[in-house]
């Protein structure tokens, strides 16, 4: 059985302030696979994720999710993924529950599913008593949990996660790991970046290694050994 590619990145070049930070980026994320984007600090992992979500513009190349090109129907493209950033991007103007409502409306999540997921996730992430709080009154870990729930609410073909376990306590981390595996088994594709190599082995099916702004190696996680160091041959 051949697996369908959910995310396709084809020969992407990304530059910032006239300096090329990523070049010749080509890889695919298969349906129902967790792909780990790994690399040394400054390799361009977060930049690549930000380009995939459309926060940064690519210089050339093509990015498509489920066959929908980023430069084609951008709104439809956005419906294909949800994103968990490394630093929570919550709005100071809204309480945690109001953030969930924003995601519900934006992703057209049916009420029944919305309520069910809120119930499940807030209990699991121990956020039940913080729903009507503003983000600034919460700790960073709590904000990260809220942001994680926001991204997990919609049913999307692709989950993009930048450092998923950063700021989460051991219980929340374990729950998220289990949840990501469940989502994968249900057919969701996940592209995540992490520095925790043990997690890469436990969680991912494939890996893509970035080194100095290029893909240095990629393939099944069984072939992943260690990170390439910056500037080494």
């Amino acid at each position, binding site marked *: 059985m051949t697996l369908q590619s959910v995310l396709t990145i084809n020969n992407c070049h990304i530059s910032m302030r006239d300096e090329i930070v990523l070049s010749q980026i080509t890889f695919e994320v298969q349906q129902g696979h967790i792909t780990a984007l790994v690399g040394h600090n400054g390799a361009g992992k977060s930049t690549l994720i930000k380009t995939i979500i459309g*926060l940064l513009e690519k210089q050339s190349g093509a990015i498509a999710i489920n066959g929908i090109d980023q430069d084609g129907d951008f709104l439809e493209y956005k419906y294909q993924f949800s994103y968990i950033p490394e630093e929570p*991007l*919550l709005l100071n103007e809204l309480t945690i529950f*109001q953030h969930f*409502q924003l995601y519900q*409306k*934006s992703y057209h999540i049916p009420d029944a599913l919305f309520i069910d997921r809120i119930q499940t996730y807030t209990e699991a992430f121990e956020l039940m008593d913080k729903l*009507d*709080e503003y983000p600034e009154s919460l700790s960073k870990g709590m904000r990260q949990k809220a942001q994680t729930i926001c991204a997990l609410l919609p049913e999307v073909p692709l989950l993009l996660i930048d450092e998923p376990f950063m700021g989460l306590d051991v219980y929340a981390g374990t729950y998220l790991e289990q949840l990501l595996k469940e989502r994968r088994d249900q057919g969701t594709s996940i592209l995540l970046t992490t520095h925790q190599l043990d997690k890469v082995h436990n969680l991912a099916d494939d890996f893509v290694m970035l080194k100095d702004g290029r893909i240095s190696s990629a393939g099944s996680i069984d072939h992943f050994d260690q990170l390439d160091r910056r500037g080494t041959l």
Partner: protein
Amino acid sequence: MNFSTWEVYRWVRGQRFKRKRRLYQQAFQLTFDVTLAIYCAVLGAVFLLMAVDGLQQLYPLFDLWQASLGQLVWLLPSAFILWACGQSFFYPGLMFTTSELKLSMLPHTRSHLLWHIALVRGTACTACAFLAAMITGWLTPFTYSFAFYSAVVFSLFFILTMPLQWWLFSVSRWKKLFVFAAVSLFISGVRYITLYLELHGGWVGLFLGLLLLIWNLYLIPRSTQGVDWGRTVEVNDAKVWNLKIISHMTGVFIKPPKRYGVLHSFIRRRRAKQRFTHIHQLYHRLWRYHLHHQFTYVWKTILACAVIVTVLPVHTPWIMYLTLPIAVFVYIEVAAGLFADQFRKQPILGIIPIEEQGWLRTFYKWSAVGMSFLFILFAVVMINLHGLYAGLSLQLLGLGFWSLYDLQQRLRERISILQRTEKKGLEVLRLTGYVCLGAGVFFSPVIFGLILPPLAAKYREKLPFLRLSA
């Protein structure tokens, strides 16, 4: 005095100064223009010569001024106390920034650091005051004794009010207001008694100085107690790094977050935490915050539009044919800019798939409310100029129709840019609309022409000449 803290603090300040100097150097290298510099030098020299000439003509008046200013010098203590109370609403006075806060995590105490900051600020202020006094004594007919006497009073009360401002900054807004009112009353009372008893101003100064000294003796040992360090650091960081020239060049303005304002507290009242029953409530909330944050642009735009619709036509009535379309155009462009700005400013809104209709409708209402001021002003000015006339209702209908139509089109255009679909309207149709609006003010039946652009836009696919130009 802890010398290790002093050395570290001085080093950090030195590095900060070097970094700022580098930024200014870069800005200078970018903006320096030899021709402009020569012009400035020549103009500066001419201005100096003119100033010297002007001063010479004023020489006889200086003695008179010196006598009256001598009396006013002793108003400085009262002014400084009130100034410190007023400033404490915005600034703590002592530049305790993130760097100093981080230094305090090392073996350097906050009280030592505060002493050093106060020492540097006091010394710098005194040096500046004396330098100014020296220059005044040298260049003007004011006597050196008068200039230095003023500098001493200035420096002394500047230093004495520093702990007061520092303490007041961290207390609650209501406490600040109470202190401000109490101090104002006290100073007014003292001033009244002084005038009534015909006492020399120096006695008042001495009395206030002694009071401040006693207050400082109480405040200084408690200078690190009850301080809102987070807010202090935020405000000071913004002040220290808000380099005006660099900000203007880069368009990046560093401002302290406005978190505890009266409006903010009102917006954050308990009801605001309730869950939304309709998603439009959420959008309205975000627009309200956005417009609050961008209020400078909002009021400036409304004021500018109001001025060109009211002030200019009152002087030259025919100019309304031009100013009304310009005002509507400016208002709509700024409104559309503010609309798009919300999605650029909030990264989360750039990531999630935004629900176009809801966002558009809710902002449309806010913009239409703002625009109604323009309609009212236009009606008032026209009635004032021409009295009540039959065409006015037609003009008002046309103005309302066109403004709301164009606003809707511009908002759709902006959202299409955000969604990368770039559906751009025909500029020629827009221009036609504005021409009809202006001409309709002159001859009201022309207002009917405003129906043409929407019709043409609707049937543009069927009109060959418009299809081509599109």
